[in-house]
Protein backbone atom coordinates (compact mmCIF):
# COMPACT_ATOMS: atom_id res chain seq x y z
CA UNK A 1 0.00 0.00 0.00
CA UNK A 2 2.76 2.38 0.92
CA UNK A 3 4.36 2.20 -2.56
CA UNK A 4 1.12 3.17 -4.32
CA UNK A 5 1.01 6.77 -5.57
CA UNK A 6 -1.68 9.05 -4.22
CA UNK A 7 -2.51 10.65 -7.52
CA UNK A 8 -1.71 10.39 -11.23
CA UNK A 9 1.81 11.49 -12.08
CA UNK A 10 2.09 14.94 -13.66
CA UNK A 11 3.31 13.40 -16.91
CA UNK A 12 0.35 11.01 -17.01
CA UNK A 13 -2.04 13.91 -16.59
CA UNK A 14 -0.32 15.93 -19.29
CA UNK A 15 -0.42 12.95 -21.64
CA UNK A 16 -4.09 12.32 -20.87
CA UNK A 17 -5.35 15.84 -21.52
CA UNK A 18 -3.10 16.44 -24.55
CA UNK A 19 -4.44 13.29 -26.14
CA UNK A 20 -8.02 14.21 -25.22
CA UNK A 21 -7.63 17.51 -27.08
CA UNK A 22 -5.94 15.77 -30.00
CA UNK A 23 -8.63 13.12 -30.35
CA UNK A 24 -11.43 15.71 -30.26
CA UNK A 25 -9.59 17.83 -32.85
CA UNK A 26 -9.10 14.72 -34.97
CA UNK A 27 -12.84 13.93 -34.88
CA UNK A 28 -13.78 17.48 -35.89
CA UNK A 29 -11.21 17.54 -38.73
CA UNK A 30 -12.39 14.12 -39.85
CA UNK A 31 -16.02 15.18 -40.26
CA UNK A 32 -15.02 18.56 -41.73
CA UNK A 33 -12.71 17.21 -44.42
CA UNK A 34 -15.31 14.90 -45.95
CA UNK A 35 -17.71 17.80 -46.53
CA UNK A 36 -15.23 20.52 -47.47
CA UNK A 37 -14.09 21.38 -50.98
CA UNK A 38 -11.95 24.43 -50.29
CA UNK A 39 -10.29 23.22 -47.09
CA UNK A 40 -10.09 19.53 -48.00
CA UNK A 41 -6.40 19.49 -48.78
CA UNK A 42 -5.33 21.52 -45.73
CA UNK A 43 -7.48 19.37 -43.45
CA UNK A 44 -6.13 16.11 -44.87
CA UNK A 45 -2.60 17.38 -44.43
CA UNK A 46 -3.31 17.98 -40.71
CA UNK A 47 -5.40 14.82 -40.25
CA UNK A 48 -2.65 12.46 -41.38
CA UNK A 49 0.27 13.60 -39.17
CA UNK A 50 -2.10 14.18 -36.24
CA UNK A 51 -3.36 10.60 -36.48
CA UNK A 52 0.18 9.25 -36.59
CA UNK A 53 1.10 11.43 -33.58
CA UNK A 54 -1.85 9.98 -31.63
CA UNK A 55 -0.75 6.46 -32.53
CA UNK A 56 2.76 7.19 -31.23
CA UNK A 57 1.34 8.72 -28.04
CA UNK A 58 -0.76 5.58 -27.46
CA UNK A 59 2.49 3.61 -27.33
CA UNK A 60 4.01 6.25 -25.02
CA UNK A 61 0.90 5.90 -22.86
CA UNK A 62 1.35 2.14 -22.49
CA UNK A 63 4.99 2.55 -21.49
CA UNK A 64 4.09 5.38 -19.11
CA UNK A 65 1.46 3.23 -17.41
CA UNK A 66 4.11 0.66 -16.60
CA UNK A 67 6.55 3.29 -15.34
CA UNK A 68 3.97 5.40 -13.48
CA UNK A 69 1.26 3.04 -12.18
CA UNK A 70 -2.07 4.76 -11.57
CA UNK A 71 -3.30 5.38 -7.99
CA UNK A 72 -5.91 3.04 -6.52
CA UNK A 73 -9.55 3.76 -7.19
CA UNK A 74 -11.24 6.16 -4.73
CA UNK A 75 -13.40 4.42 -2.15
CA UNK A 76 -16.50 6.11 -3.51
CA UNK A 77 -16.28 4.31 -6.87
CA UNK A 78 -18.80 1.55 -7.43
CA UNK A 79 -17.93 -1.92 -8.64
CA UNK A 80 -19.36 -1.16 -12.11
CA UNK A 81 -17.36 2.07 -12.39
CA UNK A 82 -14.19 0.24 -11.43
CA UNK A 83 -14.90 -2.43 -14.00
CA UNK A 84 -15.45 0.18 -16.70
CA UNK A 85 -12.31 2.10 -15.75
CA UNK A 86 -10.18 -1.05 -15.80
CA UNK A 87 -11.62 -2.24 -19.12
CA UNK A 88 -10.96 1.06 -20.82
Amino acid at each position, binding site marked *: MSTQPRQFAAFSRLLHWTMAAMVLTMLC*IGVAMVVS*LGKYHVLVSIHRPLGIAILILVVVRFVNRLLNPPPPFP*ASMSRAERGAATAS
Partner: protein
Amino acid sequence: MSEREWKMPTYREALGESERPRLGIPGTLARFALIGVALAAVAGAFAYFGGWLTPNALTPARLTDAFEHVGGVHAGFRRNHAKGVGVSGFFESNGSGERVSEAVVFRPGRVPVIGRFSLSGVQPYVADAPDEVRGLGLQFSLPDGEVWRTAMVNLPVFPFRTPEAFYEQLVASKPDPKTGKPDPAGMKAFLERHPETVQAMTVIKSQPVSSGFDNTTFHGLNAFRLFNSTGKSVPVRWLMTPMQPFEAASAASGPRDKNYLFEALIAQIQRQPARWHLILIIGQPSDPTHDATIAWPAERERVDVGTLTLDRVESEETSAATDINFDPLVLPAGIAPSDDPLLSARSAVYAQSFTRREGQAKPPSAITPADVRRGN
Protein backbone atom coordinates in the same frame (compact mmCIF):
# COMPACT_ATOMS: atom_id res chain seq x y z
CA MET B 1 -1.64 12.80 22.92
CA SER B 2 -3.46 10.31 25.13
CA GLU B 3 -4.43 6.80 24.13
CA ARG B 4 -8.08 7.77 24.10
CA GLU B 5 -7.81 10.47 21.57
CA TRP B 6 -6.08 8.22 19.04
CA LYS B 7 -8.42 7.17 16.28
CA MET B 8 -8.02 4.51 13.61
CA PRO B 9 -7.42 6.37 10.28
CA THR B 10 -10.17 5.89 7.73
CA TYR B 11 -9.44 4.38 4.30
CA ARG B 12 -9.74 7.81 2.69
CA GLU B 13 -7.31 9.36 5.12
CA ALA B 14 -4.91 6.50 4.60
CA LEU B 15 -4.90 7.34 0.93
CA GLY B 16 -4.32 10.97 1.74
CA GLU B 17 -7.65 11.93 0.24
CA SER B 18 -8.97 14.80 2.30
CA GLU B 19 -12.59 14.69 3.31
CA ARG B 20 -14.47 17.16 1.16
CA PRO B 21 -17.68 18.79 2.37
CA ARG B 22 -20.70 17.30 0.64
CA LEU B 23 -22.12 19.51 -2.08
CA GLY B 24 -25.53 21.03 -1.58
CA ILE B 25 -28.24 20.84 -4.24
CA PRO B 26 -27.26 24.17 -5.92
CA GLY B 27 -23.62 23.10 -6.04
CA THR B 28 -24.50 19.75 -7.57
CA LEU B 29 -26.73 21.40 -10.15
CA ALA B 30 -24.01 23.90 -11.03
CA ARG B 31 -21.55 21.09 -11.66
CA PHE B 32 -23.98 19.15 -13.82
CA ALA B 33 -24.66 22.35 -15.78
CA LEU B 34 -20.93 22.81 -16.36
CA ILE B 35 -20.61 19.25 -17.64
CA GLY B 36 -23.64 19.85 -19.87
CA VAL B 37 -22.13 23.02 -21.34
CA ALA B 38 -18.86 21.25 -22.08
CA LEU B 39 -20.66 18.35 -23.80
CA ALA B 40 -22.90 20.73 -25.78
CA ALA B 41 -19.84 22.70 -26.93
CA VAL B 42 -18.13 19.56 -28.20
CA ALA B 43 -21.33 18.29 -29.89
CA GLY B 44 -21.96 21.74 -31.41
CA ALA B 45 -18.41 21.98 -32.77
CA PHE B 46 -18.78 18.51 -34.22
CA ALA B 47 -22.08 19.41 -35.93
CA TYR B 48 -20.62 22.68 -37.22
CA PHE B 49 -17.51 21.09 -38.71
CA GLY B 50 -19.46 18.14 -40.08
CA GLY B 51 -21.65 20.51 -42.10
CA TRP B 52 -24.92 19.57 -40.36
CA LEU B 53 -25.65 23.24 -39.76
CA THR B 54 -25.17 24.13 -43.46
CA PRO B 55 -27.05 21.41 -45.35
CA ASN B 56 -27.03 23.38 -48.62
CA ALA B 57 -23.26 23.87 -48.86
CA LEU B 58 -21.52 22.23 -51.81
CA THR B 59 -19.61 19.12 -50.71
CA PRO B 60 -17.39 16.65 -52.59
CA ALA B 61 -20.22 14.11 -52.43
CA ARG B 62 -22.77 16.57 -53.87
CA LEU B 63 -20.44 17.56 -56.71
CA THR B 64 -19.83 13.89 -57.53
CA ASP B 65 -23.58 13.24 -57.30
CA ALA B 66 -24.06 15.96 -59.94
CA PHE B 67 -21.92 14.00 -62.43
CA GLU B 68 -24.03 10.92 -61.75
CA HIS B 69 -27.24 12.95 -61.98
CA VAL B 70 -26.28 14.44 -65.36
CA GLY B 71 -24.83 11.37 -67.05
CA GLY B 72 -26.00 8.39 -65.04
CA VAL B 73 -24.01 6.03 -62.83
CA HIS B 74 -21.47 3.95 -64.74
CA ALA B 75 -20.31 1.40 -62.20
CA GLY B 76 -16.56 1.03 -61.86
CA PHE B 77 -15.70 3.94 -64.17
CA ARG B 78 -14.30 7.35 -63.29
CA ARG B 79 -17.12 9.79 -62.63
CA ASN B 80 -15.60 12.16 -65.19
CA HIS B 81 -13.15 11.47 -68.02
CA ALA B 82 -14.67 7.99 -68.05
CA LYS B 83 -13.31 6.83 -71.42
CA GLY B 84 -9.58 6.26 -71.63
CA VAL B 85 -6.50 4.12 -72.16
CA GLY B 86 -3.40 3.59 -70.03
CA VAL B 87 0.09 4.53 -71.17
CA SER B 88 3.59 4.31 -69.76
CA GLY B 89 7.09 5.47 -70.52
CA PHE B 90 9.56 7.84 -68.93
CA PHE B 91 10.42 11.46 -68.35
CA GLU B 92 13.95 12.60 -69.10
CA SER B 93 14.81 15.76 -67.20
CA ASN B 94 17.46 18.07 -68.64
CA GLY B 95 18.14 19.81 -65.32
CA SER B 96 16.85 23.24 -66.38
CA GLY B 97 14.10 23.12 -63.78
CA GLU B 98 16.50 22.86 -60.82
CA ARG B 99 16.94 26.63 -60.80
CA VAL B 100 13.28 27.11 -59.80
CA SER B 101 12.44 23.88 -57.99
CA GLU B 102 14.28 21.46 -55.75
CA ALA B 103 11.87 18.66 -56.78
CA VAL B 104 13.85 15.50 -57.57
CA VAL B 105 11.94 15.17 -60.86
CA PHE B 106 13.81 18.23 -62.19
CA ARG B 107 17.30 16.85 -61.50
CA PRO B 108 18.97 15.58 -64.66
CA GLY B 109 17.96 11.98 -65.29
CA ARG B 110 15.17 9.65 -66.16
CA VAL B 111 12.11 8.70 -64.10
CA PRO B 112 9.37 6.18 -64.99
CA VAL B 113 5.95 7.57 -65.85
CA ILE B 114 2.54 5.97 -65.99
CA GLY B 115 -0.44 7.83 -67.40
CA ARG B 116 -3.86 7.82 -68.96
CA PHE B 117 -5.34 9.54 -72.00
CA SER B 118 -9.04 10.26 -71.71
CA LEU B 119 -12.03 12.10 -73.09
CA SER B 120 -13.98 14.29 -70.70
CA GLY B 121 -17.50 13.38 -69.75
CA VAL B 122 -19.40 10.83 -67.76
CA GLN B 123 -20.01 8.32 -70.60
CA PRO B 124 -17.41 5.52 -70.75
CA TYR B 125 -18.47 4.49 -74.27
CA VAL B 126 -18.95 7.94 -75.83
CA ALA B 127 -18.03 8.21 -79.54
CA ASP B 128 -14.75 10.06 -80.11
CA ALA B 129 -15.24 13.58 -81.46
CA PRO B 130 -12.76 16.40 -82.16
CA ASP B 131 -14.36 18.87 -79.75
CA GLU B 132 -14.53 16.53 -76.74
CA VAL B 133 -12.07 17.78 -74.13
CA ARG B 134 -8.96 15.54 -74.08
CA GLY B 135 -7.24 14.67 -70.83
CA LEU B 136 -3.81 13.36 -69.89
CA GLY B 137 -3.16 12.18 -66.34
CA LEU B 138 0.46 11.44 -65.40
CA GLN B 139 2.28 9.94 -62.47
CA PHE B 140 6.05 10.41 -62.19
CA SER B 141 7.73 7.93 -59.79
CA LEU B 142 10.79 9.59 -58.32
CA PRO B 143 13.86 7.63 -57.14
CA ASP B 144 13.40 8.79 -53.52
CA GLY B 145 9.93 7.21 -53.35
CA GLU B 146 7.98 10.42 -53.91
CA VAL B 147 5.39 10.62 -56.67
CA TRP B 148 4.16 13.56 -58.68
CA ARG B 149 0.71 13.39 -60.21
CA THR B 150 -0.80 15.88 -62.61
CA ALA B 151 -4.03 15.81 -64.58
CA MET B 152 -4.04 18.02 -67.66
CA VAL B 153 -6.46 18.86 -70.46
CA ASN B 154 -6.17 20.35 -73.93
CA LEU B 155 -7.81 23.67 -72.93
CA PRO B 156 -5.53 26.72 -72.62
CA VAL B 157 -7.64 28.04 -69.70
CA PHE B 158 -10.30 26.46 -67.51
CA PRO B 159 -13.87 27.75 -68.06
CA PHE B 160 -14.73 27.95 -64.35
CA ARG B 161 -13.15 29.90 -61.53
CA THR B 162 -14.64 28.10 -58.53
CA PRO B 163 -16.01 24.64 -57.73
CA GLU B 164 -19.41 26.27 -57.17
CA ALA B 165 -19.43 27.69 -60.72
CA PHE B 166 -18.39 24.31 -62.07
CA TYR B 167 -21.25 22.67 -60.19
CA GLU B 168 -23.80 25.24 -61.40
CA GLN B 169 -22.76 24.67 -64.99
CA LEU B 170 -22.77 20.90 -64.58
CA VAL B 171 -26.33 20.94 -63.29
CA ALA B 172 -27.39 23.35 -66.07
CA SER B 173 -25.82 21.04 -68.68
CA LYS B 174 -28.12 18.11 -67.89
CA PRO B 175 -29.87 17.19 -71.15
CA ASP B 176 -33.61 17.70 -71.21
CA PRO B 177 -35.15 14.23 -71.73
CA LYS B 178 -37.52 15.73 -74.35
CA THR B 179 -34.97 17.48 -76.59
CA GLY B 180 -31.82 15.57 -75.65
CA LYS B 181 -30.11 18.93 -75.16
CA PRO B 182 -29.55 21.16 -72.12
CA ASP B 183 -32.16 23.80 -71.44
CA PRO B 184 -30.81 26.90 -73.30
CA ALA B 185 -32.40 29.27 -70.77
CA GLY B 186 -30.49 27.63 -67.92
CA MET B 187 -27.17 27.89 -69.77
CA LYS B 188 -27.86 31.51 -70.72
CA ALA B 189 -28.61 32.40 -67.11
CA PHE B 190 -25.40 30.70 -66.02
CA LEU B 191 -23.29 32.64 -68.53
CA GLU B 192 -24.91 35.91 -67.48
CA ARG B 193 -23.84 35.25 -63.91
CA HIS B 194 -20.34 34.18 -64.96
CA PRO B 195 -18.71 36.59 -67.43
CA GLU B 196 -15.34 34.95 -66.67
CA THR B 197 -16.66 31.76 -68.29
CA VAL B 198 -17.72 33.67 -71.43
CA GLN B 199 -14.26 35.18 -71.62
CA ALA B 200 -12.52 31.85 -71.10
CA MET B 201 -14.69 30.20 -73.75
CA THR B 202 -13.58 32.85 -76.26
CA VAL B 203 -9.93 32.00 -75.54
CA ILE B 204 -10.67 28.26 -75.77
CA LYS B 205 -12.51 28.60 -79.11
CA SER B 206 -9.69 30.65 -80.62
CA GLN B 207 -7.31 27.70 -80.22
CA PRO B 208 -7.40 25.23 -83.11
CA VAL B 209 -8.03 21.59 -82.17
CA SER B 210 -5.43 19.07 -83.33
CA SER B 211 -6.13 15.87 -85.25
CA GLY B 212 -5.23 13.41 -82.51
CA PHE B 213 -4.06 12.82 -78.95
CA ASP B 214 -0.41 12.58 -80.02
CA ASN B 215 -0.20 16.13 -81.39
CA THR B 216 -2.25 17.72 -78.61
CA THR B 217 -0.87 20.31 -76.18
CA PHE B 218 -1.94 19.51 -72.62
CA HIS B 219 -2.22 22.25 -69.98
CA GLY B 220 -1.95 21.85 -66.22
CA LEU B 221 -4.38 24.84 -65.95
CA ASN B 222 -4.08 25.54 -62.22
CA ALA B 223 -1.19 27.53 -60.84
CA PHE B 224 1.24 25.99 -58.35
CA ARG B 225 4.26 27.26 -56.45
CA LEU B 226 7.79 26.04 -56.95
CA PHE B 227 10.44 26.18 -54.22
CA ASN B 228 14.12 25.91 -55.02
CA SER B 229 16.89 24.76 -52.69
CA THR B 230 17.40 28.28 -51.33
CA GLY B 231 13.70 28.46 -50.34
CA LYS B 232 12.84 30.99 -53.04
CA SER B 233 9.33 30.53 -54.38
CA VAL B 234 7.81 31.37 -57.77
CA PRO B 235 4.30 30.85 -59.15
CA VAL B 236 4.19 28.36 -61.99
CA ARG B 237 1.91 26.77 -64.57
CA TRP B 238 2.94 23.88 -66.80
CA LEU B 239 2.06 22.32 -70.10
CA MET B 240 3.13 19.46 -72.35
CA THR B 241 3.83 20.49 -75.94
CA PRO B 242 3.88 17.65 -78.49
CA MET B 243 6.94 16.83 -80.61
CA GLN B 244 4.57 15.28 -83.16
CA PRO B 245 3.74 17.96 -85.75
CA PHE B 246 0.45 19.82 -85.41
CA GLU B 247 -2.28 18.96 -87.82
CA ALA B 248 -5.72 20.53 -87.50
CA ALA B 249 -8.66 18.26 -86.79
CA SER B 250 -10.55 17.55 -89.96
CA ALA B 251 -13.57 19.80 -90.34
CA ALA B 252 -15.30 17.19 -92.48
CA SER B 253 -17.93 15.40 -90.47
CA GLY B 254 -17.80 12.20 -92.46
CA PRO B 255 -18.35 8.82 -90.81
CA ARG B 256 -15.69 8.16 -88.21
CA ASP B 257 -14.96 5.14 -86.15
CA LYS B 258 -16.41 5.38 -82.65
CA ASN B 259 -12.91 5.07 -81.17
CA TYR B 260 -10.89 6.76 -83.92
CA LEU B 261 -8.90 9.04 -81.58
CA PHE B 262 -7.83 6.18 -79.30
CA GLU B 263 -7.14 3.81 -82.20
CA ALA B 264 -4.90 6.39 -83.86
CA LEU B 265 -3.03 6.90 -80.58
CA ILE B 266 -2.50 3.15 -80.16
CA ALA B 267 -1.23 2.85 -83.73
CA GLN B 268 1.06 5.85 -83.30
CA ILE B 269 2.65 4.63 -80.05
CA GLN B 270 3.08 1.10 -81.41
CA ARG B 271 4.83 2.52 -84.46
CA GLN B 272 7.00 5.03 -82.61
CA PRO B 273 6.95 6.42 -79.05
CA ALA B 274 5.03 9.71 -78.69
CA ARG B 275 6.96 12.59 -77.09
CA TRP B 276 6.22 15.89 -75.41
CA HIS B 277 8.27 18.76 -73.94
CA LEU B 278 7.40 19.64 -70.36
CA ILE B 279 7.29 23.44 -70.25
CA LEU B 280 7.17 25.47 -67.03
CA ILE B 281 5.66 28.95 -67.33
CA ILE B 282 7.29 31.03 -64.60
CA GLY B 283 4.84 33.60 -63.24
CA GLN B 284 5.48 37.05 -61.84
CA PRO B 285 4.30 37.99 -58.35
CA SER B 286 1.52 40.04 -59.98
CA ASP B 287 0.12 37.06 -61.92
CA PRO B 288 -3.13 35.69 -60.48
CA THR B 289 -2.68 32.18 -59.10
CA HIS B 290 -6.24 31.77 -57.82
CA ASP B 291 -8.01 32.07 -61.17
CA ALA B 292 -7.67 29.31 -63.76
CA THR B 293 -9.93 31.17 -66.22
CA ILE B 294 -7.21 33.75 -66.96
CA ALA B 295 -4.05 32.96 -68.93
CA TRP B 296 -0.84 34.69 -67.84
CA PRO B 297 0.75 37.21 -70.25
CA ALA B 298 2.29 35.53 -73.28
CA GLU B 299 5.75 37.02 -72.59
CA ARG B 300 6.22 35.07 -69.33
CA GLU B 301 9.40 33.02 -69.23
CA ARG B 302 8.98 29.45 -70.47
CA VAL B 303 11.49 26.80 -69.41
CA ASP B 304 11.71 23.50 -71.25
CA VAL B 305 12.64 21.12 -68.41
CA GLY B 306 12.66 17.79 -70.21
CA THR B 307 10.99 15.28 -72.47
CA LEU B 308 8.13 12.89 -71.80
CA THR B 309 8.26 9.70 -73.84
CA LEU B 310 5.25 7.38 -73.92
CA ASP B 311 6.22 4.08 -75.53
CA ARG B 312 3.56 1.70 -74.31
CA VAL B 313 -0.22 1.82 -74.50
CA GLU B 314 -2.63 -0.52 -72.76
CA SER B 315 -6.31 -1.08 -72.26
CA GLU B 316 -7.72 -0.04 -68.88
CA GLU B 317 -8.21 -3.75 -68.22
CA THR B 318 -4.45 -4.30 -67.83
CA SER B 319 -3.04 -0.82 -67.14
CA ALA B 320 -1.98 0.11 -63.61
CA ALA B 321 -3.19 3.65 -64.42
CA THR B 322 -6.78 2.44 -64.04
CA ASP B 323 -6.39 2.37 -60.26
CA ILE B 324 -4.50 5.65 -59.99
CA ASN B 325 -6.34 8.71 -58.74
CA PHE B 326 -4.65 11.52 -60.69
CA ASP B 327 -5.04 13.87 -57.75
CA PRO B 328 -3.34 17.16 -58.69
CA LEU B 329 -2.21 17.68 -55.09
CA VAL B 330 -0.01 14.60 -54.91
CA LEU B 331 3.19 16.64 -55.19
CA PRO B 332 6.85 16.07 -54.40
CA ALA B 333 8.81 18.45 -52.15
CA GLY B 334 9.68 21.49 -54.29
CA ILE B 335 6.19 21.78 -55.83
CA ALA B 336 3.37 23.16 -53.66
CA PRO B 337 -0.28 24.09 -54.17
CA SER B 338 -1.24 27.70 -54.93
CA ASP B 339 -4.30 29.51 -53.57
CA ASP B 340 -6.40 28.32 -56.52
CA PRO B 341 -9.66 27.04 -54.96
CA LEU B 342 -10.05 24.46 -57.72
CA LEU B 343 -7.02 22.49 -56.53
CA SER B 344 -8.40 21.45 -53.16
CA ALA B 345 -11.82 20.83 -54.73
CA ARG B 346 -10.33 18.61 -57.44
CA SER B 347 -8.42 16.65 -54.82
CA ALA B 348 -11.60 16.16 -52.75
CA VAL B 349 -13.86 15.21 -55.66
CA TYR B 350 -11.31 12.89 -57.28
CA ALA B 351 -11.03 11.05 -53.95
CA GLN B 352 -14.82 10.76 -53.83
CA SER B 353 -14.96 9.43 -57.40
CA PHE B 354 -12.12 7.01 -56.63
CA THR B 355 -13.85 5.67 -53.51
CA ARG B 356 -17.10 5.14 -55.40
CA ARG B 357 -15.65 3.42 -58.46
CA GLU B 358 -13.16 1.21 -56.61
CA GLY B 359 -16.00 -0.35 -54.65
CA GLN B 360 -17.75 -1.47 -57.84
CA ALA B 361 -17.16 -4.17 -60.43
CA LYS B 362 -16.14 -2.55 -63.72
CA PRO B 363 -17.48 -3.78 -67.05
CA PRO B 364 -15.00 -3.88 -69.97
CA SER B 365 -13.77 -0.47 -71.14
CA ALA B 366 -14.52 0.90 -74.61
CA ILE B 367 -10.93 0.16 -75.65
CA THR B 368 -10.33 -3.53 -74.93
CA PRO B 369 -7.03 -5.44 -74.73
CA ALA B 370 -7.94 -6.94 -78.15
CA ASP B 371 -8.21 -3.42 -79.62
CA VAL B 372 -4.73 -2.62 -78.33
CA ARG B 373 -3.25 -5.89 -79.64
CA ARG B 374 -4.77 -5.33 -83.03
CA GLY B 375 -3.18 -1.88 -83.25
CA ASN B 376 -3.99 -0.22 -86.52
